[in-house]
């Protein structure tokens, strides 16, 4: 994109010529209503209500509490993002509320506000000024501007520190004193009365931004303001004062840039893209106040005008002052209005307030209180006659009537095709429309609708991504789970094969023991599977989808396997235990001999068979055995377990199996006992020391323990679903110990064992 060069623009400006922007209108400015009287300071309002968000961007985090005493200028909210600026207490007093309050928005909706009850003392807090700002770094000055809560005061409310901290080179720094909208005179009065402070602010901006040229632009209907600035800046040749031809909306950022430099800001671009930065005179004044006096932005000039107030004038109002209070100060005459109606902003771009308690905010430049005959109601809209007066008036060279058709027909995509978002909502088209169509109203509506649709689209996109991510995760977990199940199954099969092989090769009368060993191997495999399953408490579907099948699996297998083998197994276990005891005592003697013996002459096939079941059983069994043996001898044969000697292979392998079986049985009994103690019913240490003494006793205790554990597990389960079942269960639990129904008890015990295991598993997972 080509635009006029810097030198050419300077030449043109020096020659006293200007460019122009297309369109524009010349409404009656009505500025004389309020620009003749000096700026007044209103009395302190009863309550001050400060919205946390008074600018474009996100709101800061409130850093005071209800009941706090705040000093004037004390910070009330902290910037949480680079685009937010803090707000400050406009006067000293007590924070009486931090709650939603109606704010300056056409919707009349509420936003979070801090309400302060002034104490009337107006005590300043600590102020830190930077009189010698040239000695400070630019970053610290920009930070001070941010901390003073300064955002653009011309209307848009863009945070000033963002604008001032750009890294792109700036050719023109433009001070916008145009104030083109009718009725508004706040900048006019500010320039007339505070020209020197504005110049100081300009000095600071000059130091910060170091532009090639500085232009102070004032519309030619404000000669006094221009003169005041002339006097203030007479010693600085760099500060070029330009009187701009009066035409609405010359004060628009893009329009003023076009008038002064003939450069067009690209769509979706910023003025900096054409080497221009623009600040409002009010912003400039606030910067000077913040840097040189340390005062944050707590007040601004507000024009209160219109024929329905008897004394229209400008007020230096504290931010947060209710509109009602200012109207009272300006002597609002309700009889001149049909219905109370206050417009915030000017007649072209302002909006009607929903409530008179709405506070003045950083962007409030005018309160217009028109009399009944002053403004039309705008409800006499007629059909468009295609006169194209709107297109002639449009400063952005759009086609307002096309936009109107599409906006009215809700064809938003077509409206966007006609560059709806390049509309600056100046209202010139509406002003010239002979059919009195509120064109801008339609554009605003269409814009907000499109923005909402975009938001929804973004949200839908996000939801889609989350949904897909979740699905991918679930899929992955399912695969992992299947993989684990498969591995567990393989392990189970391998264990079973290993046992079968041993039984055939050993070819002894150890059939029952084999079954025990096989059952143990199965139990172990199950346990391994359980151990491997992911945390139950994880907050996703793994928990539900994963554990229940497992639990079912183990329960089914437990009940189908155990009853068949149960009787034999128990007998076997009893024998095994007896043997184990014998073995344990023997082992104590043996260890001295077996331990140092390396597996020198072991036959390889025997070894292979043994290894199958041994490897798995070894680790678990070893620990249990170590404990069992601790009583007999304080030695450890666990780490390097000797391979059975070939000469006594069958004997030893039998012995070993018995020992393993016994150890596991002990471990189980112990576990059951642990449950018991946890249940605080049975503190008796059942198996560890006593199972060797009497098998029956141990068995019984184990069963009792298991039954209690089962009852407990069931109770836990039922507590959620149906609490009344637990009584029944508790009645059943003692039944299980009844020697009469031993068979059923055993089955129950087997199931209970599985369940207890699971419960233990879950408990450990949760802890």
């Amino acid at each position, binding site marked *: 994109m080509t635009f006029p060069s810097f030198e050419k623009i300077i030449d043109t400006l020096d020659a006293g010529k200007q460019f122009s922007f297309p369109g524009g209108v010349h*409404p*009656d400015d009505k500025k004389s209503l309020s620009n003749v009287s000096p700026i007044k300071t209103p009395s302190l309002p009863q309550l001050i209500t400060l919205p946390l968000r008074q600018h474009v961007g996100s709101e800061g985090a409130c850093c005071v509490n209800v009941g706090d005493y705040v000093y004037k200028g004390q910070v009330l909210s902290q910037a949480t993002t680079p685009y937010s600026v803090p707000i400050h207490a406009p006067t000293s007093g007590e924070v009486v509320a931090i709650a939603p309050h109606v*704010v300056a*928005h*056409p*919707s009349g*909706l509420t*936003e979070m506000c801090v309400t302060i009850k002034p104490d009337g003392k107006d005590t300043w807090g600590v102020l830190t000024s930077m009189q010698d700002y040239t000695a400070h770094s630019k970053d610290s000055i920009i930070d001070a501007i941010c901390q003073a809560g300064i955002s653009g005061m011309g209307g848009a409310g863009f945070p000033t520190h963002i604008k001032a901290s750009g890294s792109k080179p700036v050719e023109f720094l433009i001070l916008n004193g145009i104030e083109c909208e*009718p009725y508004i005179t706040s900048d006019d009065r500010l320039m007339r009365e505070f020209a020197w402070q504005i110049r100081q602010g300009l000095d600071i901006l000059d130091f910060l931004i170091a532009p090639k040229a500085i232009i102070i632009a004032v519309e030619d209907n404000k000669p006094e303001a221009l003169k005041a600035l002339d006097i203030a800046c007479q010693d600085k040749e760099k500060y070029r004062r330009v009187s701009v031809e009066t035409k609405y909306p010359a004060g628009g950022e893009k329009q003023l840039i076009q008038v002064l430099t003939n450069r067009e800001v690209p769509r979706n671009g910023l003025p900096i893209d054409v080497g221009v930065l623009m600040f409002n005179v009010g912003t400039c004044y606030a910067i000077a106040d913040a840097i040189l006096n340390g005062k944050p932005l707590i007040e601004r000039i507000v024009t209160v005008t219109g024929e329905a107030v008897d004394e229209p004038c400008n007020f230096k109002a504290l931010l947060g002052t209710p509109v009602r209070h200012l109207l009272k100060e300006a002597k609002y005459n309700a009889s001149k209005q049909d219905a109370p*109606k206050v*417009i915030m902003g000017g*007649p*072209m*771009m*302002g*909006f*009607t307030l929903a409530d008179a308690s709405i506070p003045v905010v950083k962007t409030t430049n005018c309160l*217009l209180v*028109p009399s009944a*005959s*002053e*403004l*039309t*109601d*705008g*409800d006499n*809209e007629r059909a468009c006659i295609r006169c194209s007066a709107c297109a002639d008036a449009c400063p952005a060279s759009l086609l307002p009537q096309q936009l109107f058709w599409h906006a009215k027909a809700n064809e938003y995509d077509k409206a966007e095709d006609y560059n709806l978002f390049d509309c600056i909502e100046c209202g010139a088209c*509406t*002003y010239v429309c002979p059919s*009195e169509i*509120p064109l*801008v*109203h339609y554009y*605003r*509506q269409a814009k*907000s*609708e499109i923005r*909402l649709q975009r*938001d*929804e689209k973004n*949200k*839908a*996109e996000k*939801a*889609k991504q*989350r*949904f*897909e*991510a*979740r*699905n991918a995760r679930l899929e992955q977990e399912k695969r992992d789970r299947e993989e684990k199940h498969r591995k567990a199954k393989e392990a189970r099969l391998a264990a079973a094969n290993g046992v079968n092989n041993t039984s055939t090769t050993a070819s002894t009368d150890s059939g029952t023991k084999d079954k025990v060993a096989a059952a143990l191997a199965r139990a172990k495999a199950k346990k391994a599977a359980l151990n491997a399953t992911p945390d139950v*408490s*994880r*907050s*996703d*579907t793994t*928990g*539900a989808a994963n554990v229940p099948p497992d639990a079912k699996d183990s329960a089914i297998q437990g009940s189908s396997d155990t009853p068949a083998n149960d009787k034999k197994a128990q007998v076997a276990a009893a024998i095994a235990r007896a043997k184990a005891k014998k073995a344990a005592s023997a082992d104590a003697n043996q260890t001295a001999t077996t331990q140092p013996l390396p597996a020198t002459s072991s036959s390889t096939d025997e070894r292979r068979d043994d290894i199958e079941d041994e490897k798995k059983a070894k680790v678990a069994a070893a620990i249990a055995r170590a404990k069992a043996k601790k009583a007999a001898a304080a030695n450890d044969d666990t780490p390097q377990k000797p391979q059975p000697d070939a000469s006594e292979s069958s004997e030893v392998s039998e012995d070993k199996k018995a020992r393993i079986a016994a150890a596991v049985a002990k471990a189980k009994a112990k576990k059951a006992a642990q449950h018991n103690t946890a249940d605080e019913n049975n503190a008796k240490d059942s198996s560890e020391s006593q199972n060797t003494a009497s098998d029956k006793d141990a068995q019984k205790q184990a069963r009792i323990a298991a039954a209690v554990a089962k009852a407990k597990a069931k109770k836990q389960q039922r507590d*959620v679903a149906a609490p009344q079942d637990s009584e029944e269960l508790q009645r059943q639990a003692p039944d299980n110990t009844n020697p009469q129904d031993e068979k059923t008890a055993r089955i129950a015990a087997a199931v209970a064992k599985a369940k207890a295991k699971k419960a233990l598993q879950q408990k450990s997972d*949760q802890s």
Partner: protein
Amino acid sequence: MSISFAVIAIGVLALIFGLILGYASIRFKVESDPLVEQIDDVLPQTQCGQCGYPGCRPYAEAIANGDEINKCPPGGESTIKKLADLMGVEPKPLDGAHGEEDVKKVAYIREDECIGCTKCIQACPVDAILGAAKHMHTVLTDECTGCDLCVDPCPVDCIDMVPLVQTTSTWKWDFSVTPKGDIPIKMVS
């Protein structure tokens, strides 16, 4: 002799074209049916399953395969209209069997009643519920699509669907609520 020339020439040409086509099929491979993507973009992505499919994408696939376009209550009339435009069919009224169009809602967990069962977490299609077993759960309002799927699994019925509160950023001009005259643009000149 001349026959063999022709055969060789045609064969060589066939080989060259075959190579070009083979390369093109890899180089310009279309990942999936673009129509499904387009339909999926139109759907509101609430993943609510009210259409009878487990999520918006499966429904998009079903529409691409000829299913009805009026089974999406969260999308409502505007979605049906867009789908009709996309598919080149006549718009139909929303199929009442799948639910009614409603205002946008988000789930809200009454936190003191939550027992921490994680059932709602498992039901949420977009992982918008935060919590752990036996700990209170809460809804990430920004992520919630208002699909209703968490309401039924809750054993203590502590989940409400509350209409989304309108804020100044979600507000839109509504001529039926805000009369046009409320924007004072027109001046008497």
